[in-house]
């Protein structure tokens, strides 16, 4: 595999709202910018396929970036890094990027909690379903149930509905009281309130139930999911026939590149530690958007802009933006408080429930494990393809283990013929 070389002033990892905003701000101030994203289309999880407003803004932003000569590396993932250097892998080859400053806008991934039947064909992540819908999936004639916790459930349900699906139920495991409390805080954030009202209006015919957790998914004759059982706090159950079950239990920031590069992370694991300008503990390294704390699109956009300005040396120009960024962080804290899953409200596991999907490790095999390390070393849990990204989140919740602590090379599974270009991370005697 070949390895191309790229030099830039500012590298931006992620082409979602935060990354795009950062690239816009930095390029506007004359910096050479390269934006790197694993998807073929920019927009991250959030944009395109969603509200028309988002689609137009993204298209306009991308056109502007192209006009300014901002490089957009698509379908490319960071696999390792060193000071001022990144090794990336794409389908066509490897890339070595030498950069001045780096802005991490790596977004978030979903926390997924296991329950009996969650590995059945047709059970998909809510955010994952949204991305598939974004890429053109149509769901005419399909019944969809959405369950778990967090505002993403509503967004996914709405996107599914727009693609022709019949969404029979949105089950939110947080209790009604907490949802009400969250809703009562929304007027402090008028934009969010408007968004919530719009979403609810779009889903008026869809039952949205609180205090309802996943209990079991079952398959039909063909092996595809056909039914889901939900349970309330008193154990009363309800069944829904479905063709697709979309699940999600809130979002976690994507932190592996940040950790690898030595950034200090927040104690609560909720993001990279940053100052008001997005600067991390590593000089020249910034973080914006979900990576600095899950808080949605607006937070991402404004933090991206601030970090882009800061990275381009225009700290003074960020002044006016800081109060709004502050406000967005307060919203993020509110989101976290409302929707971080609580163990006692989460789906219950049976001994046979698969915990590690990659290696098919059921709960009972982890009974004697006292730590994450022991689970991995002795039971193969977390030692498969995803290297614990899925089961780690679940076990952190259920067992209280610290599962996100590792920093690894490669960050994602990488072809060996890409890996040999690791030598280029250390300047000097590169071949």
């Amino acid at each position, binding site marked *: 595999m070949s390895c191309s070389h790229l030099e830039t002033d500012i590298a931006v990892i992620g082409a979602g709202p935060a990354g795009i905003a950062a690239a816009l701000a930095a390029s506007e101030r004359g910096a050479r910018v390269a934006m790197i994203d*694993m*998807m*073929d289309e920019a927009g991250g*999880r959030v944009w395109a396929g969603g509200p028309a407003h988002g689609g137009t803004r993204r298209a306009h932003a991308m056109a502007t970036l192209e006009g300014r000569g901002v490089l957009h590396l698509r*379908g490319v*993932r960071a696999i390792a890094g060193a000071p001022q250097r990144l090794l990336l892998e794409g389908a066509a080859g490897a890339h070595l990027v030498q950069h001045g400053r780096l802005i991490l806008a790596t977004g978030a*991934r*979903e926390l*997924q909690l296991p329950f009996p039947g969650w*590995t059945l*064909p*047709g*059970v*998909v*992540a809510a*955010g*994952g*379903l*949204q*991305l*598939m*819908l974004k*890429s*053109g*999936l*149509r769901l005419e004639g399909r019944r969809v149930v959405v369950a778990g916790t967090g505002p993403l459930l509503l967004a996914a349900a709405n996107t599914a509905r727009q693609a022709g699906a019949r969404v029979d139920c949105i089950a939110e495991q947080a209790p009604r009281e907490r949802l009400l409390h969250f809703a009562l805080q929304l007027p402090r954030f008028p934009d969010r309130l408007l968004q919530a009202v719009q979403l609810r209006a779009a889903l008026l015919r869809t039952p949205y139930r609180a205090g309802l957790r996943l209990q079991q998914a079952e398959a039909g004759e*063909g*092996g*595809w999911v056909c039914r889901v059982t939900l349970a309330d706090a008193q154990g009363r159950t309800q069944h829904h026939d479905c063709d*697709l079950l979309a699940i999600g239990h809130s979002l976690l920031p994507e932190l592996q590149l940040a950790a690898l590069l030595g950034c200090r992370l927040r104690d609560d694991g909720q993001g990279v530690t940053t100052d008001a300008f997005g600067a991390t503990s590593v000089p020249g390294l910034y973080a914006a958007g979900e990576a600095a704390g899950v808080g949605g699109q607006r937070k991402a956009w404004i933090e991206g802009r601030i970090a882009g300005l800061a990275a381009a040396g225009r700290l003074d120009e960020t002044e006016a933006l800081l109060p709004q960024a502050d406000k967005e962080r307060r919203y993020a804290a509110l989101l976290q408080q409302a929707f971080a899953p609580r163990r006692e409200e989460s789906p219950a596991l049976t001994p046979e429930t*698969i915990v590690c*999907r*990659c*290696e*098919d490790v059921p709960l009972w095999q982890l009974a004697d494990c006292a730590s994450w390390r022991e689970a991995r070393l002795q039971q193969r849990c977390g030692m*498969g*393809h*995803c290297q614990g*990204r*899925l089961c780690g989140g679940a076990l952190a919740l259920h067992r209280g283990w610290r599962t996100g602590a590792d920093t690894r090379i490669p960050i*994602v*599974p990488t072809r060996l013929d890409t890996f040999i270009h690791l030598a280029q991370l250390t300047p000097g005697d590169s071949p």
Partner: protein
Amino acid sequence: MSAMITLHIDGTPYRVPEGQSLAAALIALQLPSRVSVGGTPRTPFCGMGVCGECRVTVGDEPGVLACLTACRHGLSVRTR
């Protein structure tokens, strides 16, 4: 609306919208992407390159993530 193209999954031809993710196509067609270590069929799950449930062989290359791959005419996909 996207043009429809033909690709093959485990030898069978399918018509899918061009540019749709391969994972989306598998979901639409109700086809598993892989078989787990324990022998159970799996379909794309996280949709964003994390879980690995959508690993398929595309052409000669195994371990390709369907959720990060767009449907293109002539693609030859194997799930087992």
